[in-house]
Every structure is written in structure tokens, then in C-alpha cells.
């Protein structure tokens, strides 16, 4: 299973590298949303709850773009039929797609989070350092698992651009709660982690449940 998944993942990353479709769009979108928040909230710098909320809502909205595009090339070019004809476990496809989304999100965050620190955040980003990447990675894992499932679910409907945000965002509410609550104390002027264990525990539970559920049901989405 690891072999085929690696091959599909390599193909997706190569495709992204050559077309530069998803990651630059998601990054650009994040920066645009910061500008929107700056004017919408009429604030030059944010801290604490507001900062954590703006950061995570922006990242989730950017993830919507990635999820919408995740199966796009396969569908438009008919590559999905070839993938389904290949004598490969369907779970490999899920693992490949979820890993691709995970890596896209990490790539976006490498730019978008420092940009947030420069553009909107009041306290320095350095004070959040050892914990924030961990929260981001756990959050990305959950988004990747749910996102790959939602993307496959919406791929065969007529109105997939509508289904993806409507389905993905409510599904991610528990993840948003955990991530924002865990991040919030790190972005206060008097920085320091607080209740980190509880939120990371719940976040891990969310990730585990949705990875398992997605692996269990993914086969049925690609039967024909």
C-alpha cells in the first residue's frame, strides 16, 4: 500500500510543482483574508483570542480552496478512471491524497503564518515557537483527513464547488475550537502555553477518529 500511495503522492506533488495551482492560490488567498480582517475589524495589530481566531479561520478558508482542487485534475482529465483501473488498494489513494493536502497546507503555512506575524500580530511570533508548529501540524492532519474525504464525496456531484465549503467547514468546527483555544494563550502579550494538553488531546482524538472513519468509508466512494 505504501508503494502505490507514494507513487500517486509523487505524481500529485510533481503536478503541483509544474502547474503551481493550489499552493500559490491558497497562500495568496490567506494574505488577502488578512487584509480583509484588517479592514473588517479596523485593527492594526491583534493579540490573544482575536489573533488566534483570525489565523485559524483564514487557514480553514484557504484549506477550502485546496480541498476543492484536490481531485480536480483527475476529474477534468479523466485520470480517475485510470487510477481506478489500476490494481491498487483504494486506501492508497486516500493516503496519497490526504498526504498531498497535508503537504500543501504545511507549504502554505510556511508563508502564511510568518506573514500573519508581520502583518497583524501584535506580540512577536517567536514567543509561540515550540508549541505553535505542533498545533499547526496536528490541525493540518485533521484538515487533511476530513478534506480528502469531503473532496472525494463532492467530486461526483454536480455542484461540488458548493458542497465542499458547506460540508467541510461545519465538520471542522471541533478542530477550529481545539486549535484556536490552544493557540490563543501563545499569542497573548504575556505569552505562554495554557491548557495545552487538554486541547491537543482532543485534537489528537479528532484526528484519529477522522483518519479511521475516512479510511473505513473511502473504498465505497470509488467503487465504480
Amino acid at each position, binding site marked *: 500500500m505504501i508503494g502505490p500511495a507514494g507513487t500517486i503522492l509523487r505524481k500529485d506533488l510533481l503536478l503541483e510543482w509544474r502547474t503551481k495551482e493550489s499552493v500559490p492560490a491558497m497562500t495568496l488567498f490567506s494574505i488577502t483574508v488578512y487584509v480583509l480582517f484588517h479592514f473588517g475589524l479596523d485593527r492594526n495589530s491583534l493579540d490573544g483570542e482575536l489573533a488566534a481566531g483570525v489565523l485559524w479561520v483564514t487557514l480553514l478558508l484557504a484549506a477550502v480552496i485546496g480541498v476543492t482542487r484536490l481531485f480536480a485534475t483527475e476529474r477534468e482529465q479523466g485520470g480517475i478512471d485510470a487510477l481506478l483501473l489500476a490494481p491498487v488498494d483504494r486506501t492508497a489513494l486516500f493516503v496519497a491524497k490526504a498526504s498531498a493536502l497535508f503537504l500543501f497546507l504545511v507549504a502554505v503555512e510556511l508563508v502564511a503564518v510568518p506573514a500573519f506575524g508581520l502583518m497583524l500580530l501584535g506580540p512577536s511570533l517567536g514567543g509561540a515557537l515550540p508549541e505553535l508548529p505542533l498545533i499547526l501540524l496536528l490541525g493540518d492532519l485533521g484538515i487533511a483527513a476530513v478534506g480528502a*474525504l469531503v473532496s472525494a*464525496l*463532492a467530486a*461526483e*456531484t*454536480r*455542484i461540488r464547488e*458548493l*458542497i465542499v465549503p*458547506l*460540508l467541510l467547514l*461545519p*465538520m471542522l*468546527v*471541533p478542530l477550529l*475550537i*481545539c486549535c484556536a*483555544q490552544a493557540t490563543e494563550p501563545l499569542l497573548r502579550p504575556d505569552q505562554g502555553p495554557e491548557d495545552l494538553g*487538554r486541547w491537543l488531546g*482532543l485534537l489528537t*482524538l*479528532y484526528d484519529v*477518529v*477522522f483518519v479511521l*472513519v*475516512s479510511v*473505513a*468509508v473511502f473504498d*465505497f*466512494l470509488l*467503487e*465504480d
Partner: protein
Amino acid sequence: MYSKGLAPLAAATVVTLTAALALVFFYAPLDADQGFVQKIFYIHVPMAIVALCGWVAGGIFAIRHLRSGDPSWDLRSYVAIHLSIILGLGVLITGAIWARASWGHWWVWDEPVLVSFLVTFLLYCVYYPLRFAIEDPERRARYSSVFAIAAGAFVPLNFTAVRLAEAYTHPRVLSQTGGDLPGEMRLTFLVALVGMTLLFVTLWKLELTAKHAAAQLNKLRRRRAEREAVAA
């Protein structure tokens, strides 16, 4: 096929719901703190419990559908989720009325049960556009089942996360202590809960019967049309 036992079930529903209403208005004591408004509790809470159970049941039917491939399980799952969404709307409306009367606001955000219910409701509302955007009936059944299972797993997680995130203002009716209801109130509540469950099951069976009959009728019509086409 689905209509078996529908008539006695409907009769039991009418009797229990009438009894529940009678108990609510003539037997259960007035709440010392909230007065008459508290009586909405006997509608609001059973409705919420039945709606959540209906959603989880929809997920369980969906698992059976994916395992067996029998489309009748998908129909059961669909009707359960559909009815739960209708009940869920009722829960949100009665909850808002109750919140307005007892806390002074139509909507209270630091209120974990209300908020998690809203998120769950919003998620399940996507079931309709998803289901009706897929043309092929077999694929539609499969995709709807996948949604029902993922959303069923989402319900408990969501409630945990929202509850941890917010302050505790909502009365916890189903806590280990039984919510400290006095005896008369508890009896009334239980009768109302049974009545609501019976109502749900009756409506579910009725809807299944109707959908099944409509499908049969369609099949017969198509067959007649085919025969006429051959004859002509």
C-alpha cells in the same frame, strides 16, 4: 413491506402524546424559578434527544447499507436523517424561545448544547444538496451513506469540543445524577420522551411506506408505458 404495525403504532403515539400533554399542563408542578415557560422543556428536550438519536441511527443504517448493498437501508437512513432535521429545526426554535424567556436573549453563544446542536444541524442540512446532486441512484445511496457515517461520528466529537470550550450554563438533563428533577416532573418528562420517540418512529414508518409506494407506482407506470410502446 414497511406499513406493518403502523396503525397500532399510530394509536399508541396519539395516546402517549395526549397523556404527555395532559401531564404537562395538569400534573407537572409549575417551576418555582421560571414559572409557566419551563413547560417548553417537555417538548424541547425530548425533541433534541430524539433528533440526535435519529441522526446516529441514520449513521447505523448507513453502515448496514454499505455492508449489505441493500438500497432499503439507505432509504431508512435517509428518512431518519430527514425527520431528525425537521425535529432539529423545532429544537432550535423552541430553544430560542426558552432562552429568550429564561436568559433574556434569543440566542446565547456561551451555551454549549445549543451551539453544538446548531453546528450539527448545519452539517446535516448539507445532506440534501449532496444527495440530490447525484444522479445515479446506486451511487447516490452509497455517497449518502458515507456522509451519514462521517456525520454520525462527528456528532459526539462536536458535543465534546463545544462543551469543553464554553461555560456551563445549560441544565444538564442527562447527567449521571438525573438532572435533579422532582418526581412528578421526571415522570412527565419520561412520558413526553416516549411520546416523542413513538412519534418519530410512526412518522418514519409512514414516510418509508409512502416512499416505497411511490417507487412501486413509478415502476408499474414505467412497465405499462413500455408495454403500450411495444403494442403500438
